């Protein structure tokens, strides 16, 4: 039984020529070789290292800092600075997380206690699920021909948990924020999905690996309108600054998560970064060619993963830079933007895709 298990594991390994001489030494060590073989098994590698736990963790740990630093510099402020000042305050979020960990989680009297405590942790887990279907180069945890649809379905599940947070909080600010979140959800979701479907039609497949191989010209050039709609939709979905309508700091403090404190707040704080990471990864797959790029000698399968992460981080940075440039939309302006120009542009994008497919067939 161990042998059959090892055969399945060994047949689907991440090949990295750079560390192969080290791996050749391993058979002499009894337990370690099985562990390393298991670690390099592609599904597990995808979950644990890239694009899963390690890269995701690094993103969550450093991108809030990068966002604050970049926006601060663009707006002539300084951004996080005092913690490890010679590195510009890189470990700011680590310090914040430590503080959140030891802070008391206050559950106020009117809150629905079980849901109030469950939802932050539940939503954190749900937000991680799409990573199973996102391939970094050729490394993917679950390979299905319906990966994009599944990712979209899981992404559409996110606002439900935000609504749950707001409902369990049972406070007027959380209530208003939750209603706004629901309004915005309907505004961006339809153009967002239409833009993704336009790309599925364009490539004729929804398998991310096949999609990457069919993007000899990146999708952003083939269908820039759909790319724009998808990008704005992503900005709305992550409630980043120009569309920070549900969590507006000025009127609602933090919207649905105004009542949270301690580590529960810490989890919710990184939720939108997690969401941004997943949507940027999706954008990389749909419009920027996924993990395709010039192969780097010695990295093997990791080369694709490297290009995937670089492109994802590029999209993430652009998404965060919006905050420094645009002022915040009102709820009615956001709804108007979602329902009229974006919907029309998404349909134009769909038409462009159909035209491209028709030209290709002829």
């Amino acid at each position, binding site marked *: 039984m161990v042998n059959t298990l090892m055969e399945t594991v060994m047949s689907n390994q991440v090949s990295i020529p750079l560390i192969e001489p080290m791996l050749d030494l391993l058979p002499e060590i009894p337990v370690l070789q099985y562990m390393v073989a298991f670690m390099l098994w592609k599904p597990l590698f995808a979950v644990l290292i890239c694009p899963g736990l390690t890269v995701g963790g690094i993103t969550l740990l450093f991108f809030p800092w990068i966002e604050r630093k*970049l*926006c601060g*510099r*663009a*707006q*002539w*402020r*300084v951004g996080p*600075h005092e913690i490890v*000042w010679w590195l510009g305050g890189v470990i700011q979020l680590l310090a914040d997380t430590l503080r959140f960990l030891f802070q008391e989680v206050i559950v106020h009297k009117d809150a629905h206690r079980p849901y109030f405590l469950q939802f932050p942790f539940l939503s954190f887990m749900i937000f991680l699920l799409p990573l199973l279907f996102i391939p970094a180069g050729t490394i993917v945890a679950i390979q299905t021909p319906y990966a994009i649809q599944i990712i979209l379905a899981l992404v559409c599940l996110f606002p439900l948990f935000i609504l749950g947070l707001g409902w369990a909080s049972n406070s007027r600010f959380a209530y208003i924020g939750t209603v706004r979140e629901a309004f915005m959800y309907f505004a961006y979701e339809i153009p967002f999905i239409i833009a993704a479907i336009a790309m599925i039609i364009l490539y004729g497949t929804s398998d991310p690996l096949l999609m990457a191989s069919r993007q000899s010209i990146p999708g952003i050039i083939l269908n820039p309108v759909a790319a724009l709609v998808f990008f704005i939709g992503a900005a709305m979905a992550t409630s980043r600054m120009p569309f920070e309508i549900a969590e507006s700091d000025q009127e609602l403090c933090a919207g649905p998560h105004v009542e949270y404190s301690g580590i529960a707040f810490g989890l919710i704080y990184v939720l939108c970064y997690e969401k941004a990471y997943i949507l940027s990864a999706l954008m990389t797959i749909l419009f920027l060619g996924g993990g395709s790029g010039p192969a780097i000698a010695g990295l093997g399968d990791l080369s694709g993963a490297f290009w995937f992460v670089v492109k994802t981080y590029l999209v993430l940075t652009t998404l965060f*830079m919006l905050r*420094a*440039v*645009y002022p915040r939309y009102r709820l009615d302006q956001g709804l108007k933007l979602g329902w009229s120009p974006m919907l029309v542009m998404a349909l134009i994008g769909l038409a462009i895709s159909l035209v491209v497919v028709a030209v290709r067939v002829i």
Partner: protein
Amino acid sequence: MKMKSMKKVVGPEYNLSEKIKTNVYAVGVAMQESVYPHTMTVFYPRERKKMPDNYRGFILFDPDKCISCFNCSFVCPANAIRMKEAPSRRYYPTVDYGRCIFCHFCIDSCSGGALKATKIHDVAYKDMDEMFTPTEEMIELPEIIREDKKYVEYEIEEDDLHLKRTKGEDYLFVEVPPPIQIPMVSQCIDRASCIGCRVCEEMCESGAISSSAENGMLRMKIDTDKCTGCGLCVKECSMQILMLKLKKFE
């Protein structure tokens, strides 16, 4: 009667190409600023703004040059300077920094150049009583923990303010040349009016004025070599017959 017509304020209307142009410009500026920001912030303990040499800061005192003329305490508009008697029976200034407005009139009025300005502006005290600085604490520079490795200067280039950082420490104590001293001496201009109250003798710090009784008459004498020209006797003379005059060199 004609009604005043109301006007609705409308924002400027842009067409699509102008909208795209302004958006691209805004994003471009944000990108440029995030790479090379024109931030004006000075990270204070680690770098200091370079102050001009004539900056009005903490006041230093050199007792050797002081002639105890009381000019600093007379001129002080905030009454921060009080003269206190030192063990050497001479009067030296003390500064109450709770009152001091850092006008540096005292330094300007100091005839011997005993008071000196420094660039120190970040002295901290625990309470109001500690802000009273006796003469002993004014003689040496206060203890400063210097963390700064750079100093910062503001420069105007092309109608734009820029920050210029230079490695090195800014010197907080500026050595200025001593003021040109005009040697003065006290002189009695109307001996007949002297009532012999001997206030001038009591006032004189350097012992230049002495009195002697001759034939039942009091005779005052001013020793021009000992006189420092502080002018205290001139201020205190009840008949106002003393005057400061230029010292004649022989």
